[in-house]
């Protein structure tokens, strides 16, 4: 690791942050157009973040509450930086030399756990309910995800993401989604849960438990969370792109692929209504689990 890695990392973060924000805006715009609305401006997420940072007063419920957004954003950035973003690029390989796929999978929870703790310190029952729902859901989709990951790791005989991507080079027929469809399907279904869009968005449920865990966060704290909301999904998209869709050799490919992958939860979310938590837990442990087991058996 050299000093310039830090600079490269900052560059990656900057690009992905902007991409994430624009992606957020564009997707909401698309959602609006589907609903025959004009919709927000594509750069609305930027304004929202600036607005939140421009808030003059902030309240805090305690130390954990105050640093929870830090945990959250650290989780998001870390997830991003522990992955090779652009295949074959020294600059955007970031810190992927520190750990492999397992690290990435478990590092996701760093932010989730930190956020959950902070939200809980606010003492707001809705936060706690949201966390309870969120964690319940996480546990259930993690099972098909894990099975898929094991299947892929066995397929490529490695846990090294760069090597997994390398093995998929040379045309889309080499992509995991083609070569190992069951694992890919199991993971893509789990991906729906991971993105937290409808039908698995009961965690945030704005109507009944005002947006769940972050309900007490405001001003700059919320701003940090919003930064994470831009980076974290983008990082997850990059992860799934790397594992299932052959990674990306340049930014244009990355943007195209991740955008298309993002359309998958967006479409599902537009079509399906919300599951209750117990329903989604049960659902994840039926169809996706069976697909995952098939993937394992077929290794």
């Amino acid at each position, binding site marked *: 690791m050299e000093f310039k890695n830090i600079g490269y990392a900052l560059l990656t973060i900057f690009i992905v942050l902007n991409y994430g924000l624009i992606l957020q805006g564009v997707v909401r715009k698309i959602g*609006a157009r589907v*609903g*025959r*609305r*004009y*919709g*927000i*401006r594509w750069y*609305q997420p930027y*304004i*929202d973040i*600036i*607005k*939140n940072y*421009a*808030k*003059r*007063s*902030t*309240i805090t419920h305690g130390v954990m509450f105050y640093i929870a957004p830090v945990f959250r954003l650290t989780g998001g950035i870390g997830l991003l930086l522990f992955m090779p973003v652009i295949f074959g690029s020294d600059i955007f390989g970031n810190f992927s030399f520190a750990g492999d796929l397992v690290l990435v999978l478990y590092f996701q929870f760093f932010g989730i756990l930190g956020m959950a703790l902070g939200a809980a310190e606010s003492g707001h029952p809705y936060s706690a309910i949201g966390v309870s729902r969120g964690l319940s859901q996480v546990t259930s989709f993690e099972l098909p995800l894990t099975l898929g990951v094991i299947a892929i790791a066995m397929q490529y005989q490695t846990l090294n993401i760069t090597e997994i991507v390398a093995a998929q080079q040379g045309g889309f027929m080499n992509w995991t989604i083609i070569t190992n469809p069951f694992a890919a399907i199991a993971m893509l279904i789990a991906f729906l849960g991971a993105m937290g869009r409808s039908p698995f968005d009961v965690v945030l449920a*704005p*109507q009944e438990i*005002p*947006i769940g865990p972050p*309900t*007490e*966060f*405001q*001003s700059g704290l*919320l701003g940090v969370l919003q930064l994470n909301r831009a980076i974290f999904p983008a990082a997850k998209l990059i992860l799934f792109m790397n594992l299932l869709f052959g990674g990306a050799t340049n930014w244009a490919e990355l943007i195209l692929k991740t955008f298309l992958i993002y359309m998958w939860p967006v479409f599902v979310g537009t079509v399906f209504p919300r599951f209750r938590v117990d329903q989604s837990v049960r659902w994840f442990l039926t169809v996706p689990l069976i697909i995952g087991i098939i993937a394992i058996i077929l290794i």
Partner: protein
Amino acid sequence: MKEDFKKRTVISPEGKPIEIDPLKDYFSDAKPKVYKPAHPIIEKFANWARANSLWVLGFGTGCGAIEMRPLMTPRFDAYRYGIQWRPTPRQASVFVVSGYLSVKTLKRVVRTYEQMQNPKFVIALGSCTINGGMYWDSYNTINRLDHYMPVDVYIAGCMPRPESLLAGFDKLKTIITEGRGEGANTYAEKFDWYKANQKKVIKDWDMPDYNW
């Protein structure tokens, strides 16, 4: 006052009696602060952002609330102006008081208003908030909202249509960009006056002076 907010004595695990004064122990009793605007250039930029990101608190206070829903429908589509709903006062910046306020509701409105973060803006909707409207002589509805909290924009009518609301929002944007949206600071400056007015009508005052 509700029984739960009166002083009480409980026994600690060690068997020692502890005095609990819920209003002191469970609520912060800090006074609101006046936050000085930042450097004009930064402030101008910030105001632009504030004006273009109006997060409305989803709190239907009176019958006018029914006029707010259509705003988000494809027909009026307030999203394109940067207006979005926010279900919690912590994250909202615009409070639309949508109609008459009984004393009981006023108490909740005040509390919610105070829970919003500076800067925050109030749009008062309908005649009732201006002069009591058709409830002007009621024993239980207030007549003038601006005696209880700073109001940035009044929208007259009974009821004003969504178009008027949009116009009101537009007006609010102008006010903010011009740097006149300092309601929160006004509230802090004239805190004692506002509090006195509130306390005059809210007889059952069972909360701290400022709800953080």
